[in-house]
């Protein structure tokens, strides 16, 4: 324990830097996934057949073990000379983010009571006003929950991306294993856990801020 504290004490600039790397990988991947996943989820909510295909594919991606996915991406991206490092890591995390984001977006839009749409329509709201006053306040908390899941999930998976040279806190764990250095393994593992817990906490607060008290579970 004392050794761990000493290690962190003398290596904190490195740990901070790796944490920052970790956050960037996850942030960029989930950010991109939000941009693609929300429109896909909305489209799926309007079209039953599309919903079947999109959710099926997203679920299959989810079942691929992360090591295997990195393995698949290496030869594919090697074509453009990006087989290892940051790019495959971001792509893998991007793919893993699709299911929580798409399925939550889909479910959020599908769960809006048709009576609310009819009421909104009947009182003279335009398409845009219905989105702003009725749909958005109801779907944003649910979509936010999907983004939160994706981020927490990917903070864990990103640790493994160190094996394909993407950097991040996984690097500490990896070098700790190769050097049989428990301090590094623990420092890396604890940092990843704290990061995941912190992100979950922070996003949970944000999610609550975005949820109307009228929608909170009774």
């Amino acid at each position, binding site marked *: 324990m004392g050794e761990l504290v000493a290690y962190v004490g003398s290596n904190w600039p490195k740990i901070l830097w790796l944490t920052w790397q970790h956050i960037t990988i996850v942030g960029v991947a989930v950010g991109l996934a939000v941009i693609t996943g929300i429109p896909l989820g909305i489209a799926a909510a309007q079209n039953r057949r599309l919903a079947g295909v999109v959710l099926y594919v997203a679920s299959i991606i989810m079942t691929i073990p992360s090591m295997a996915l990195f393995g698949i991406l290496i030869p594919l991206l090697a074509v453009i000379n990006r087989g290892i490092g940051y790019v495959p890591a971001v792509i893998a995390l991007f793919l893993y983010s699709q299911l929580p984001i798409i399925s939550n977006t889909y479910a959020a839009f599908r769960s809006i*009571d048709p*009576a*609310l749409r*009819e*009421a*909104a*329509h*009947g*009182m*003279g*709201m*335009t398409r845009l*006003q219905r989105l702003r*006053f*009725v749909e958005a*306040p*109801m779907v944003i908390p649910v979509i936010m929950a999907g983004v939160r899941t994706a981020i927490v999930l990917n903070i864990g998976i990103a640790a493994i991306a160190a094996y394909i040279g993407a950097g991040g806190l996984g690097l500490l764990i990896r070098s700790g294993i190769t050097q049989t250095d428990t301090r590094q393994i623990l420092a890396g593992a604890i940092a990843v856990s704290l990061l995941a817990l912190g992100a979950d906490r922070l996003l949970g607060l944000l999610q609550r801020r975005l949820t*109307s*008290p*009228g*929608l909170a579970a*009774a």
Partner: protein
Amino acid sequence: MIKIENLSKVFEQDGRRVAAVDGVDLEVGRGEICVLLGPSGCGKTTTLKIINRLVVPSGGRVLVDGQDTAEFDAITLRRKIGYVIQQVGLFPHMTVEQNIGIVPRLLGWTPERRRARALELLDMIGLEPQQYVGRYPRELSGGQAQRIGVARALAADPPILLMDEPFGALDPVSREALQDEFLAMQQRLGKTIIFVSHEIDEAVKMADRIAIFRSGRIVRQGTPDAVLSDTSDAFVAGFIGRDRALKRLRRHHCREILEPCNRAFARGAPSVTPEDDLRTALSMLVEADLDALPCYQPDGNIAGMVRLARIRGLLDGGAELEAAS
């Protein structure tokens, strides 16, 4: 106020053309409650939705104050027509105040004015304003939610109200209460109301005018009294039921047939007040096996008497007798 001319709506269903509304003509005067009555799938709701252009008609037109609604912008039109649905459709993420204020908000009212209006309407529908203004829909009972649904429709003071089975989802006790409150409110507001219902009792109670629908057509229309006394059509007669005499009597009150009291009634005998309806009076006459009841003012003074023969005579009077309520 509202005039519907030769309205029709044809839907495509499994490649077949189905006429949901088929040549409907209807006129509703200012301040009237017109009930569209009929079994489900008879075209009454479709007709209602054509009026605020949620459904585009296949033929015919709807005139409001002589102007064809097809010439209005649909959004502007809808903001001038209050709309109440059976499922209420209060927005769960908005407070009562925000729900009531939503159409005014669309119309650009200031927050202060919207709040004042919400408080005014809550008071009118009999909910303590300060207690309810900040509540969310999930904190309301079914009856309270529907009252607020009505308040929301009234918020921007539209001259016309469309109501699609507004009290249909409530238990019988709350429904009766809401109907009574609504009629009392309408006495003051004088809105022009089109009200969809599948219940003859509700129609008789609420309507100034009833239009009975069957397979997209109006098979009979007129005052409740006229519709109830008409037995020429088997469908209409079946829909009304064989107790139609009782249904008619509910619309009439003792004051209409009072006669000077020319006999002595026993002290403590059954009695009525001028505002009791004749169905109640008849029930009491039958129960006590009498041919007349004394009628007292609420202050205890004798107002006259109600004779069984006069009730019978009123029923024979038929369609030309207007409900005086």
